[in-house]
């Protein structure tokens, strides 16, 4: 075992942790009367630094570090940058939308940053126990954040629901880790890949994989593990949902990619059909349910379930094509979803007096620029050409077709037609002239501050770049996919030896 901890491999996480700690300490030592907004800026700066640190990691040779528990490859850098970007946008959004007199504002920023630590670690950990810890870090901060608006009834309800169901899911995940350890004697992803195929008790491996999948699919809110999503999204504060619906999802998808393609490639014939079914269910259930929603946040919750389905379609792709498509989709989805939740936050207000579709009526007239941005994100979510949503779907389904899942691609495309109905409904309402002046006065004009403008600008730019010049991101996703595909060189000699010795005895 390498005695030096090689901190450089977890530099972004370290920076984020230090930022979070600094924010908490400052929050505690500042006078209560002082504004906490600068802490938010501090958190944003820390996140930006973490983003640069992840990019800097590209200059490191690829490989494992920090006692062989994490690795840095193009794949991890891709997701680190994505997650840091999402967290940055969410922080900028909260900076302007959290009311200045709200309690524990410092904690809010600290929790967001701690959540980011968990998400980042989740994408780079190659040791299942570290994965579990990362999952818990990110989950616990989001549980608390979901209940942040505790003076209203809905927010604590959302937090409790999310916490209870989420704990179950992580328990499943932990149980999966225990079983896989029982079956293979290892919790290291590459070793599992070598050992799982020759494990004495094959059934145990399969059960373990099933357990792991339950935990992960819950986190990405794929059907049939999606029940919590609408309630949590509706109850949690909107800036938190902007983060919740993108950051942990992207990180968990990265984890899913790692577990399926790196730890269990041998079981491809088992998990591929399973994910096929989950993808079809998620798309169809998500879209059908979204059609009937009146609350925008609930509608977007179901839409995010459907998008999880589109992303899972990429898993039907073979090897690196599927991984690249899934990574790209995660980026495209995150860009447009975090953006649309920023708009929703601005329109419905922090205390969410105006969360219904009808409250968006005439948005284009009330706040022309914001209305256009909303329509732009909706168009991208539909998947209209030359937006990020289109290329995301295109790569995802193209991977599915490449893997031979023609039916899945057709179902997915039909679903995206279905989805257009509810996105267009919201867009049409926003573009409608408000019927009377009284109604117009009822919903106030959203206040758009500097930080929020920056957040919106970032997400609009990202969505456009992904739609018009996706070359760079796609290349990054592809080279990331290749690093994930390369069969892991065992980090230390003993494990390689172990792999060889276990392969020796013939299967019973």
């Amino acid at each position, binding site marked *: 075992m390498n005695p030096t901890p090689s901190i450089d491999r977890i530099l972004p996480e370290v920076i984020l942790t230090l930022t979070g700690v600094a924010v908490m300490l400052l929050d505690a030592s500042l006078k209560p009367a002082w504004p906490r907004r600068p802490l938010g800026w501090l958190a944003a700066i820390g996140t930006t630094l973490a983003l640069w640190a992840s990019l800097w990691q590209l200059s490191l040779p690829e490989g494992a570090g920090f006692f062989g528990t994490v690795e840095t490859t193009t794949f991890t850098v891709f997701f680190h940058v994505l997650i840091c970007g999402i967290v940055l946008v969410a922080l900028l959004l909260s900076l302007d939308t959290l009311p200045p007199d709200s309690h524990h504002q410092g904690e809010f920023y600290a929790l967001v940053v701690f959540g980011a630590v968990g998400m980042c670690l989740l994408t780079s950990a190659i040791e299942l126990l570290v994965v579990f810890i990362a999952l818990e870090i990110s989950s616990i901060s989001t549980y608390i954040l979901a209940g942040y608006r505790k003076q209203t009834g809905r927010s604590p309800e959302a937090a409790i629901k999310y916490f209870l169901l989420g704990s179950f899911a992580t328990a499943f995940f932990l149980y999966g880790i225990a079983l896989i350890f029982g079956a293979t004697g290892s919790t290291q992803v590459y070793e599992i890949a070598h050992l799982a195929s020759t494990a004495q008790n094959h059934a145990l491996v399969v059960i373990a994989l099933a357990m792991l999948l339950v935990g992960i699919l819950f986190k990405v809110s794929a059907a049939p593990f999606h029940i919590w999503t609408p309630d949590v999204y509706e109850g949690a504060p909107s800036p938190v949902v902007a983060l919740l619906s993108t950051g942990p999802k992207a990180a968990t998808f990265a984890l899913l990619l790692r577990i399926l393609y790196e730890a269990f490639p041998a079981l491809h014939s088992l998990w591929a059909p399973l994910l096929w079914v989950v993808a079809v269910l998620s798309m169809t259930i998500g879209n059908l349910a979204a059609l009937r929603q009146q609350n925008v946040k609930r509608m977007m919750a179901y839409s995010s379930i459907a998008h999880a389905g589109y992303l899972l379609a990429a898993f039907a792709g073979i090897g690196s094509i599927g991984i690249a498509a899934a990574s790209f989709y995660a980026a495209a989805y995150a860009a447009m979803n975090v953006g649309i939740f920023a708009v929703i936050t601005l329109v419905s207000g922090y205390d969410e007096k105006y969360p219904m579709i009808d409250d968006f009526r005439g948005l284009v007239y009330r706040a022309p620029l914001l209305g256009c941005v909303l329509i732009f994100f909706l168009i991208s979510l539909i998947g209209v*050409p*030359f937006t990020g949503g*289109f290329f995301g779907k*295109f790569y995802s389904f193209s991977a599915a077709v490449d893997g031979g899942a023609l039916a899945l691609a057709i179902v997915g495309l039909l679903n995206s*037609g279905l989805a257009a109905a509810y996105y*267009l409904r919201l867009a*049409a309402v926003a573009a409608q002239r408000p019927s009377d002046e009284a109604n117009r006065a009822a919903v106030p004009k959203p206040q758009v501050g500097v930080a929020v403008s920056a957040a919106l600008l970032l997400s609009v730019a990202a969505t456009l770049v992904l739609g018009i010049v996706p070359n760079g991101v*796609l290349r990054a996703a592809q080279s990331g996919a290749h690093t994930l595909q390369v069969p892991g060189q065992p980090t230390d000699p003993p494990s390689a030896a172990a792999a060889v010795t276990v392969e020796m005895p013939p299967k019973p």
Partner: protein
Amino acid sequence: MQSFDPIILNLILLVPLAGAVLVAMVPDRAKLPNWIAFLTALFTFLLTLHLPAHFHLHQAGFQFEINRVWIENPSISYHVGVDGLSLWLVVLTGLLAPVGVLASWTAIQSRRKVFYSLFLIQQTAMFGVFVSLDMMLYYAFWELSLVPMAVLIAMYGRKDGPKAALKFFLYTFIPSAPLLVAILWLYARTGSFDFVTLRILLGHGSFSSTAMFWMALAFLVAFAVKVPVFPLHGWIADTYSEAPVALAMVVAGKLGLYSLLRFHVGFFPLQAQAAAPLLIALAVVGILYGACLALVQRDFWRVIAFAALSHFSLVTLAIYGLTLTGWNGAVYQILSLGIVEGALFVLLGALENRYATSQIASFGGLAARLPRAAAYFVIASLTMIGLPLLSSFIGEFAILSSTFTQVSRGWGIAAAVSVILSASYMLWLVQRLFYGPEGALAVKPARDLRFGELVALTPLVVLMFVMGVAPNLWFRSIQTGVHPPAPQFATVQQPVIRSETAGSGRLEGAAVRLHAAPTTNQLAFREVQR
């Protein structure tokens, strides 16, 4: 002017888009959005005129080509170009844009910025469909052309816009899902989205006949809905009666018919031939069915909708007759129909704008009050019927004569009945609108055609005459697309398509098209082989 050649298609695609952005930026004051949209559309039209002016009649393959790598992996290129087939369709699209803006000048009063920017985006999408030579690019434009259309129908529908928009969207979006899957599958197998490369690869029989069958079916259905071909026409009447005039005249026909000819027949000549008897039958049913329905409608938009169904079916018949004459006639007829329908839409839109109804029964005896409108309407109707010396006559004659002599007499005769039927419904419509006893509405004071409407209509009417007397101006270049010159490859293989009846000329077109790979194709083919 020659120096524009390499970028002209870029300009044609970008100018409407830039105009759309500009319209969205300016304040909605006075007639500012209208003027910007009009000038943009007019300028784009002038740009499209560059294409026929510098088109080389004797050069094979695509011209004004631009081929740049857009995305390396998957390899999608920005590959655009025109040949004889798409040349005039681009010009027609360009021509109808300013006409559409003029037709909406007073009709569209609310949210003009939204209307005109979406209208201009729609223009870009349509140009894109006609000039794209990369399947992915083509699909992107094809999809893009749906959205502004659906949104505008929903926003400006006369009675029940959202429902019509949903119908239109579902009808056209659902079949394009299998189309995309077919394109992706092709890519998964060949590693190319390029039209020229794919046509060669498909022509060399590297796919099983089952795969070819399903791909051809996916292509066929997606395009047939857009035309529409007979049993898939459910959306056309609602769309025509709900859509704003400027959009109704660009939505049907062109895109689908062009795509059938270019991609279905072009990629899958054998499958097209196998499907031809069915499609010919459906086309003839569509011709007669549309004409009969047009006779009994009470709303003039629906008359035009079913008349369009009938006329587009005639073009479908010509495409699947698989004869050179028929294809020439088909392209010519698409152009002619585009102009005639444009004129009719402007006129009927003007009537509806003045009298706020589209019920035929309310009208009558308008000729005395609106003499100019009546005159223009009669000319347009006569063209629609296919009177000699007017543009539709040429197309219809080419189609019917080729069907009669080279495809089947029975179908030819059945299709020819449509000429009588179209005369009946069009003349009856003219009679009910403009002549006879004055209807209840006629007493309402209304101005005759305004200056703007005359500006829009006059060029169209002039074109109807010019196209009627000097068709060779168009045929010369259309032929280069339908029947490429310098068929170097023609002798390499036996014609794949055999004719089962005596008509020797019948299938020659498809065969030559398949094997006459022009110079650019040869190059592309060599690249593929490498």
